[in-house]
């Protein structure tokens, strides 16, 4: 059990009049995978978007409560810095179509106007692609456009791009929902390997996926955190009736 990287206390999120998340208390332990599951519209995506402050781009978003990253209030840190420390992988693979694979990996540095030497760049690109288990497949085509890769490869490229920034936390927002079973399997293996170096929060629609890859699971329903605990415990002996019904496919 590692220490707590991120601690969410009494979090409420509103979009204009609608109350999306209600009094969420949750913390994420270092080097673990936490799955956030629940039916559509339960606030899963909103929850992880508050962790890298991406929710601020939604018009009329408002939060109450505290989120602490290594004990420091997230809202006291510059959102730009927050997003470098908390990386994100999206539902649909979204490599930059105008950039080569190489440039996609170091896109974070390029966008921020960081000047890197050729050697630094090369080592970041290779290191990140190796970590994302994509290096062997693309090492001969680094200067080709990322858009020619398969969906699963594109998603791993996006993971490499996020890893290149050396984040403490990596958020995955239903990363395999647009992928076929084989590509999904590779991403799940990858999540398993990556947790040695960082903390992972995985939003998923797929109960079986939560069971396969996560150490902890949080179950959200209608904006409330119904249950949180180790995945093993929740899937074998859920405390809450709602959780049990969800796990048995009664709704969702």
């Amino acid at each position, binding site marked *: 059990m590692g220490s707590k990287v991120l601690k969410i206390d009494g979090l409420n999120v509103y979009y204009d009049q609608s109350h999306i998340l209600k009094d969420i208390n949750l913390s994420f332990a270092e080097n673990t995978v936490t799955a956030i599951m629940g039916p559509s519209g339960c606030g899963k995506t909103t929850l992880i978007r508050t962790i*890298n402050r991406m929710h601020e781009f939604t018009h009329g978003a408002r939060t109450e409560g505290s989120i602490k990253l290594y004990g420091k209030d997230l809202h006291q840190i510059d959102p730009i810095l927050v997003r*470098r420390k908390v990386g994100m992988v999206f539902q649909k693979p*979204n490599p*930059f*179509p105008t950039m080569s694979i190489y440039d996609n990996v170091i896109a*974070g540095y390029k966008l*921020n106007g960081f000047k890197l030497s050729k050697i630094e760049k090369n080592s970041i690109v290779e290191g990140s692609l190796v970590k994302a288990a994509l290096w062997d497949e693309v090492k001969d085509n680094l200067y080709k456009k990322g858009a020619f890769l398969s969906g699963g490869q594109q998603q791993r490229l996006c993971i490499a791009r996020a890893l290149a920034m050396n984040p403490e936390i990596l958020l995955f927002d239903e990363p395999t929902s647009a992928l076929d079973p084989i590509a999904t399997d590779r991403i799940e293996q990858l999540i398993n390997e990556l947790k040695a170096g960082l903390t992972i929060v995985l939003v998923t629609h797929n109960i079986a996926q939560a069971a396969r890859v996560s150490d902890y699971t949080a179950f959200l329903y209608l904006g409330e955190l119904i249950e949180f605990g180790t995945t093993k415990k929740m899937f074998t002996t859920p405390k809450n009736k709602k959780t049990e019904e969800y796990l048995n496919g009664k709704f969702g």
Partner: protein
Amino acid sequence: MINKLAMNSFSGDQSFKFILLSSAAFILMLVAGIVITLYYYSSLSLSTFGLEFITGSTWDPVSGEYGILPFLIGTLLTSIIALVISFPLSLIITIFIGEYFTTGMPNTLMRGAVELLAGIPSIIYGFWGLFVLVPIVREFQILFDIAPYGVGIFTSAIVLAIMIIPYSASIGYEVIGLVPKELKEAAYSLGATRYEVIKNVTLSYSGSGITAGVLLSFGRALGETMAVTMVIGNSNLLPGSIFGPGNTMASLIANEFTEAANELYLSALFETGLILFIVTAVINILGKIIIKKFVSGTK
């Protein structure tokens, strides 16, 4: 009963299709007709002067000399300068409407202003140019010790620049609205600032679409007649400087068609029209092709 209903709707469908097809054919014939007429009336001038019509720099109907180089240059100069002036302005409007204020009061206001700009009749631009802009330009020319014409190529370019802003801006904000949200979010999630996202994602992704908008506004500038005629000075000589008077192909035709007493004169004016038509058509088609490519690229 049912059969009768079916029959009726069938024949209605047929006649509707017929109306559609014949209207479409009519429009095609209209365009073809215009091109053919232009060519037909130009043929005398085409066979008399050949290429010299374009390379000749003397336009003297009295002695029967017709060279449109001064007007060709005048047209291109005014339009290019107009483009240079309007581009940064329309880019700013594009970003304002398409990226910063996509909803709400500022958006409505700005959009409305741009649409209004497009709706102003060109005679009013010309009128405004002549009575407001020309005196101001003249003051500056006195200040910088340039012959104080007031009217001229530069003045028309300013008027044109304002007139074409709506064309490039409206295409611009439609185009940057098509930049996928996922890409912008990807950039934000890597810690990019709003400016960095606009510069490196939005604009780099929509560059070709914005270029197309600029091209289309260029096409518009090339053919604009009334407002330019009023402020360009209508000199039939090669322009000596951009601050002096000049003339464009469109204003030449507008100014002289009533005076074209003989057949060759009229034919020369028609050929001018033909050339103007070809130049604007090429620019427009080029712009449309780029936009089409861009839109199919976003899917």
